[in-house]
């Protein structure tokens, strides 16, 4: 039972354009969402997060949007750079102090120079 889904295994985007990565979830109890970025041979690194009380959170080139009614979140990267080429995982959790994350299956983003 995949509670967090990333339906696009891969995505290619031209350098300088916008990259949009999507994530859907089924568990309505989730109230905190995170995006992690993973390079080959390295562990995932935390990128950006959003609480369910917000619908948008921005950090530099990265913006996460949350649509609770659709149980959908997306990560926008503008402008895309070659160093953004990596696998991106979305993750979700619920409840204060519950640090147990449920991860999606990942999307491999390739930025074309």
């Amino acid at each position: 039972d995949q509670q967090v889904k990333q339906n696009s295994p891969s995505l290619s985007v031209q350098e300088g354009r916008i990259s949009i990565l999507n994530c859907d979830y089924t568990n309505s109890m989730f109230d905190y969402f995170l995006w992690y970025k993973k390079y080959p041979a390295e562990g995932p690194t935390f990128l950006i997060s959003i609480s369910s009380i917000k619908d948008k959170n921005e950090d530099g080139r990265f913006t996460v949007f949350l649509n609770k009614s659709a149980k959908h979140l997306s990560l926008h990267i503008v402008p895309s750079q070659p160093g953004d080429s990596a696998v991106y995982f979305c993750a979700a959790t619920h409840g204060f102090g519950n640090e147990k994350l449920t991860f999606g299956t990942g999307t491999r983003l390739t930025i074309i120079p």
Partner: protein
Amino acid sequence: DVKVTQSSRYLVKRTGEKVFLECVQDMDHENMFWYRQDPGLGLRLIYFSYDVKMKEKGDIPEGYSVSREKKERFSLILESASTNQTSMYLCASSFTGFNQPQHFGDGTRLSIL
């Protein structure tokens, strides 16, 4: 910077062997986690610990056990390794509390022959 160190980057073992994977963190985090990452399945939680000598099962605990004798160290044990445990294993740690991101080690690529 948070440092999560996994003892081995690559490990090759035989079926039936008892295998120990070690993880150490230097940030005094209360919580520590073990995941495995497989293609098309994302990261799946095996076990986590929220305090010394405390542990909780994750989503796929079968065939594994854990040990946390000291706050900074969390060990994953494969009691009798099998080929379906060939995978990338990732350790993570975090503080307790709402919205605390997890910090990951670089992973151990384990092959069971």
